[in-house]
């Protein structure tokens, strides 16, 4: 279980293939992260919409009560 | 078998086919358009690529097949669209009968007015693209079988998109990936014939695929019609 590379620069270089490896890793991780962030955001947005409608309803009935 | 009396109650299969062919004949302009398209785009190839007979003959099978596929795509939308617009599709769905049977009839009719004329037209275009004459039988058979498959699979796509209105690019998006295998075997049949090899192998694969498509696609299209045009 030893790391194959002696220094951080070697890790970045990947024996000359650094560009390919790290581009592949970056893009993949970004897409995977998007697969978590996108549904999370749409979940929050959907909940917020429900909340908004509830508040509007509550506000509407309160006004009716005042009338 | 509870479906037997239902089958007996439906108008005969041939009556459905006759009706659709007749309707296509009445709308001759729409029916002929894909054929003209097929011819015109095949003319583009020598203009855009090279008039050299040697080079043309090398790519002719692929060109013919791609154009046949595109011509079918142009016309497949109409397989249910007219019936949807004038309400006869709804009548069909309400009627207590197997929908798959009239759907199969529509597929056959579509092939009769698109695939078959395309196939009959193909020798003319093959000649202009300098395809070797020895490959003509293979080309005719592969286009005849292949275009029937294109009609059958296209009917599923058309049934899914029938209620979404015309002019969309959605239908090609759904159907083109499903067309890829048959095109591989179709062009391979012609390429084999050009090279003087036995071309019955890929043709048999196409026949098997057509049988499967004719058995399954009407069922899938019928199920889709029930969903989308309800």
């Amino acid at each position, binding site marked *: 279980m030893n790391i194959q590379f002696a220094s951080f620069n070697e890790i970045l270089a990947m024996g000359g293939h650094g560009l390919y490896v790290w581009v592949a*890793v970056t893009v993949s991780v970004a897409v*995977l992260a998007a697969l*978590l962030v996108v549904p999370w955001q749409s979940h929050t947005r959907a909940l917020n919409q429900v*909340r908004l409608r509830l508040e509007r309803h509550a506000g509407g009935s309160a006004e009716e009560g005042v009338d | 078998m509870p479906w037997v009396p239902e089958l007996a109650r439906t108008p005969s299969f041939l009556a459905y086919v006759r009706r659709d062919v007749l309707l296509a004949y009445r709308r001759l302009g729409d029916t002929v358009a894909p054929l003209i398209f097929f011819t015109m785009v095949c003319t583009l190839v020598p203009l855009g690529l090279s008039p050299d007979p040697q080079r043309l003959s090398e790519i002719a099978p692929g060109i013919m097949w791609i154009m046949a596929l595109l011509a079918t795509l142009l016309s497949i939308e109409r397989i249910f669209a007219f019936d949807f617009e004038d309400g006869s599709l709804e009548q069909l769905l309400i009627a207590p009968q197997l929908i798959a049977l009239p759907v199969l009839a529509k597929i056959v009719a579509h092939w009769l007015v698109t695939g078959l004329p395309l196939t009959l037209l193909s020798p003319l275009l093959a000649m202009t693209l300098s395809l070797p004459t020895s490959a003509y039988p293979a080309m005719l058979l592969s286009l005849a079988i292949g275009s029937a498959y294109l009609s059958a699979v296209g009917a599923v796509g058309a049934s*899914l998109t029938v209620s979404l209105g015309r002019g969309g690019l959605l239908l090609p998006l759904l159907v083109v990936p499903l067309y890829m*295998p048959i095109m591989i075997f179709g062009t*391979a049949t012609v390429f084999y014939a050009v090279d003087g090899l036995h071309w019955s192998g890929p043709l048999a694969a196409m026949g098997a695929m057509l049988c499967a498509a004719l058995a399954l696609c009407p069922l899938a299209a019928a199920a889709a019609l029930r*969903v989308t045009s309800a």
Partner: protein
Amino acid sequence: MVTEVKKWQWFYRLGSPRWFYEITGRWLPWLLCAASLLLASGLFWGLLVAPPDARQGNSFRIIYLHVPAAILALVGYYIMALAGAVGLIWRIKMSFMVMKSAAPIGAALTFIALFTGAVWGKPSWGTYWVWDARITSMLILLFLYLGVLALQRAFSSAEMAYRASAILALVGTINIPIIYKSVDWWHTLHQPATLKLTSASSIHIDMLQPLIVMICGFYVFYVVALCLFTRAEIIRREATSAWVRALVSNESSR
């Protein structure tokens, strides 16, 4: 009668969006931990610890993203079609929601597989794109996913979109083996003699271990993403139901 009901209870409970939402809410933190742990350790192991390939050097390390993504992309299509079939047969709305959620995940994973494959191709074959059998099949799989996604968004009625895209997914499922076989055969027909894909059979055990970790990580990640997408879909679809309203008002009163 009573036992009959009990026997199928789990099935119907599974079909309840509320139950799904609550149970995944409890599991998700753990699943997310497991996924990130597996992926992080697998990536560390694969990128830094595993020995370099004798022929391809360090560029082979892309395999640790490429292969798991490709596997899950393909498995994901079957999961999507299966969920669609369950929805169509038993008329379970929950199942349709899972099917809808599987489409964007599958498309994204197919994209990862294609992208990493292209980037890997440059150092090992000298070109980003080859019309190799497996690559071409992956591209067609992406088209199939895009078709399902486009159809889902085309309908104004959610119910209609569910059913139509489920049918399309099923038709695609029948076609996938045909596509793979035909493309494979097509490739032998036009074999470009210079290129040879990785001989996967002779992969060394030290390289295989991190790959297995990554594959497991992708599986768990897939489940997490599927749950997240499905939960969002549940809230959108069940926005007017009593339990969602109660959930929201409980949250805001807290």
